[in-house]
């Protein structure tokens, strides 16, 4: 999204370290290998690179990526086990966005996406249930019960490619979601 260019949180979130393996030799990049004195980097070298660089190189398949710890399955299981606990990493404004972005570069992408979506949906449902239970059924109560964090959940749904497209008050099928999951960034821009 364009206006994320200047957003401090979005920029800093891309500093997240990602375990990376170089798939070929590379000139000059020996500096990334602390165990070697070589000017050049040899194939197979592992390095922890910031997300902004790791994904750029992975797009050209010059490196292979692994998931940082907070996205590995053990950790995700922990998130799902107790939906009321919000993990520290989740508080990062781009935890989900980063997760979805990484997913396209790693092998376990569909299970990662699944569990991110399920975690988000659980959080989301809690938010909606709370809003439903508020006594007054007028607009001001809705917006009042939609606190900043809940509005952010809507935004996360967008950033995280969750297809929660519509929610209606007093509708039996409250959450309309799209079938399947899509990469929102590309699709949305193409559609417009």
């Amino acid at each position: 999204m364009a206006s994320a260019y200047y957003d401090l949180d979005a920029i800093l979130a891309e500093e997240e370290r990602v375990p990376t393996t170089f798939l070929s030799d590379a000139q000059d990049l020996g500096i990334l290998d602390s165990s070697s004195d070589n000017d050049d980097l040899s194939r197979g070298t592992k390095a922890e690179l910031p997300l902004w660089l790791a994904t750029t190189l992975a797009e050209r398949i010059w490196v292979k990526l692994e998931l940082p710890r907070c996205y590995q399955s053990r950790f995700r299981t922990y998130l799902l086990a107790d939906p009321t606990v919000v993990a520290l990493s989740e508080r990062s404004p781009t935890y989900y966005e980063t997760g979805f972005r990484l997913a396209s570069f790693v092998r376990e992408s569909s299970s990662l996406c699944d569990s991110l979506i399920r975690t988000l949906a659980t959080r989301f449902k809690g938010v909606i249930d709370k809003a439903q239970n508020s006594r007054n059924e007028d607009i001001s109560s809705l917006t009042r019960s939609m606190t900043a964090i809940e509005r952010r959940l809507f935004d996360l749904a967008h950033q995280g490619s969750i297809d929660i497209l519509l929610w209606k008050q007093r509708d039996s099928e409250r959450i309309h979601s799209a079938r399947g999951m899509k990469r929102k960034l590309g699709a949305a821009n193409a559609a417009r």
Partner: protein
Amino acid sequence: MAGVEDDLVGGQGGRRLDDEDVDEGQVERDFQEEFADFDAFGARAKNVDVDLLRRALLNEKGAPELLHYEALLVKHLKEAVDRQQEVVDELQTNVSNMMRSMMYQMELDRVNYLIVEYLRTRLRKIERHAFFIIKHEEMRDRLSEAELRFAQRFADLQASHLRKLALSKMPEVHQKLDDQNNQVNMSTLIFPEPDLDSFVICQVLDDIGDIELEENNIVSMNAGELVAIRYWPIRDFVRQGSVALV
């Protein structure tokens, strides 16, 4: 003690407002009626204009993009406020009108606040997307003349500021603000654009029926419903007034 007081209060004669139980609602209704009486243009009753501006303000606050400028509304209300202010000032010269003039002043302040808040909301939105607005004719058309001048000058100021402190000191190939040809990272586009995918909360005013969110995903939106939805499917409906953002 006849005079201004009797002319203004419709039908009641000089009702004094320093009684114990002030019916604020009645005073407000009296005021709105009198407000309408002072509309020299006779276009619409002024209390309707106030509602319309309030609606326009809420839409403007809720929508991710800048909406069209309500030139007539602002013009009418500003003029009405100025005229009515004169009336209130006149009232205040008479001590026995203190109470009523205070209540009228309160109403005037409220309308004035609406106008100021509307213009202010728009101005801050213009600042957020200044480059984008200047570059697209469709967006420029939504601005008042004064806003357009502001937008142009602000965009220039931002550009020259970044140029002075950073861009001019970079290699020439990187001196442009628009890095669109440099698609290395996903976020190299640096003219912030409104995000039409943002969620908004809206009240459906007219029956809209079915709208297609995406392929084979159709939802209906009916009058009276409160809905949280992405902005882009309802963009035109907001413009038409079938949907109001809250």
